[in-house]
């Protein structure tokens, strides 16, 4: 009958708060609060050598840190397993060719390219981590500003890289095709989107799908000890695609709204 404990329907998200450019010494950052889940993502652009099999592309490196502030289970090395799982999922989601234009990150084929180090910090764990992390990563990539570089060639043939002096002269990334993860948890006979901690404890199996803004599925992963019926997997995929499209629309609207406020925007940060 489409009524959950907190009054939401099966396809409703909790109220989300998104803010970008919260960390000053990164190339791009974003903070997302989805109910009690609090995620901070920072993107740093550094120069590196391209990978051997893809000499004319840059690449992304993900690192997830489950801070001990989130829940007591993350004390010491408790959060490492969850961190590597989330990082591997992010690698998988971004492994598709179309999600982000890596060729624009190349400076000199085979020699220099931009490497984007995406660091995710879990500040508070309140259910539905993957969705919140993917929203934060997309917002941080939207906010990333990579300085423009010029390659100067010497008489002997050695190349020099020159960084432009103007701090506002930078390239932005196109995040239109960056996918977002939608987690569908199976509880009883129905499936729900954006499960809280209590709902996650009741669900035996979940399906993580990454959807682009056009509704295309880029990756799928099943988590949990329970089993899923093939028909319910199809239903969940359809729901995920529908929800994913509206998620992208809402996120893009808020990012554009934030952008339009420009420098007059009052930064709330962490002491709001």
């Amino acid at each position, binding site marked *: 009958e489409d009524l959950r404990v907190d009054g939401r329907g099966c396809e409703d998200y909790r109220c989300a708060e998104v803010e970008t450019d919260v960390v000053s010494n990164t190339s791009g950052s974003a903070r997302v609060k989805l109910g009690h889940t609090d995620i901070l993502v920072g993107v740093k652009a550094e120069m590196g050598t391209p990978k051997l099999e893809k000499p004319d592309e840059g690449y992304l490196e993900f690192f997830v840190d489950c801070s001990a502030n989130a829940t007591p289970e993350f004390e010491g090395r408790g959060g490492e397993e969850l961190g590597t799982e989330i990082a591997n999922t992010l690698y998988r989601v971004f492994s598709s060719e179309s999600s982000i234009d890596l060729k624009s990150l190349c400076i000199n084929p085979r020699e220099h390219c931009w490497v984007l180090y995406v660091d995710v910090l879990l500040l508070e764990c309140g259910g539905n981590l993957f969705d919140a992390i993917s929203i934060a990563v997309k917002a941080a990539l939207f906010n990333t500003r990579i300085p423009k570089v010029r390659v100067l060639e010497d008489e002997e043939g050695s190349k020099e890289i020159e960084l432009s002096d103007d701090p506002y002269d930078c390239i932005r990334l196109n995040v239109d095709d960056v996918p977002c993860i939608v987690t569908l948890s199976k509880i009883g006979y129905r499936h729900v989107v954006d499960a809280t901690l209590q709902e996650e404890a009741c669900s035996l199996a979940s399906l993580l799908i990454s959807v682009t803004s056009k509704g295309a599925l880029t990756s799928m992963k099943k988590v949990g000890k329970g089993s899923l019926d093939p028909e319910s997997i199809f239903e969940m995929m359809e729901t995920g695609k529908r929800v994913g499209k509206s998620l992208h629309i*809402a996120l893009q609207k808020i990012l554009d709204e934030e952008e339009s406020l420009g420098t007059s925007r009052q930064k*709330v940060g962490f002491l*709001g």
Partner: protein
Amino acid sequence: MAAITMRLPVARKAVGPSAPRGSEKHLVAPGDTITTDTGYMRGHGTYVDEEKLIASVAGAVERVNKLVCVKALKTRYNGEVGDIVVGRITEVQQKRWKVETNSRLDSVLLLSSMNLPGGELRRRSAEDELAMRDYLQEGDLISAEVQSVFSDGAVSLHTRSLKYGKLGQGVLVQVSPSLVKRQKTHFHDLPCGASVILGNNGFVWIYPTPEQKDEEAGGFTTSLEPVPLSDREVISRLRNCIVALVTQTLMLFDTSILYCYEASLPHQIKDILKPEVMEEIVLETRRRLLDLEG
């Protein structure tokens, strides 16, 4: 249809107290000096260091004649005899159950403090001990009363009345124990169609009002019939109202929950958790409570 709302964060100002209290509350943090006067006796939450009385918890100072104590705002539940608690069974041991009640130590429910089905009064035998798991298993929720408090602070519970026992279908909300007001009765049948148990330990249980009072069962049988949608809507709305009251740190008692429920009726259930709607409802509730007092 999916409803996804995203917003930019806004610095929230705390909704201040609408009316000045009779006396200014003396708030302290751990390490703050309360007084340097040595004539006072030290109560809970204080300690003496170099002839100064210093607070060990964060809260408000309470002075009763010569006794000074600090009542903490957010603590674990400290058991008092006669309190009603709602707890979850964590372990089944030899002649007792261990119950989790949001206190420093697990509470204990002895087999001899539990009613036998049918209301028999006899000594518990070995068969009763072996059949303990049939009555209460790990993960079950119970309502009970505090019988006594051990010297280490652990609480001993009893369910020696037909109104206590295993809880059936409903919703549990966990709040801070300091927000539950001490009243004559903690079992309320709200006129909106649901019943509420306000446990002194901060566990609030909301459940659909049972049609007839089943006296013979003694609180052991739980009906697993599906709850109708109208009841579930009322329960979800009450749950969101309680969460709103707790977020704005208002004391929980039957009148405040009822006023908050009535103030929230114009909004949709899921909208109650939005910060601005929450502030509006709680402001309205506060106003009505002040009207009631004054």
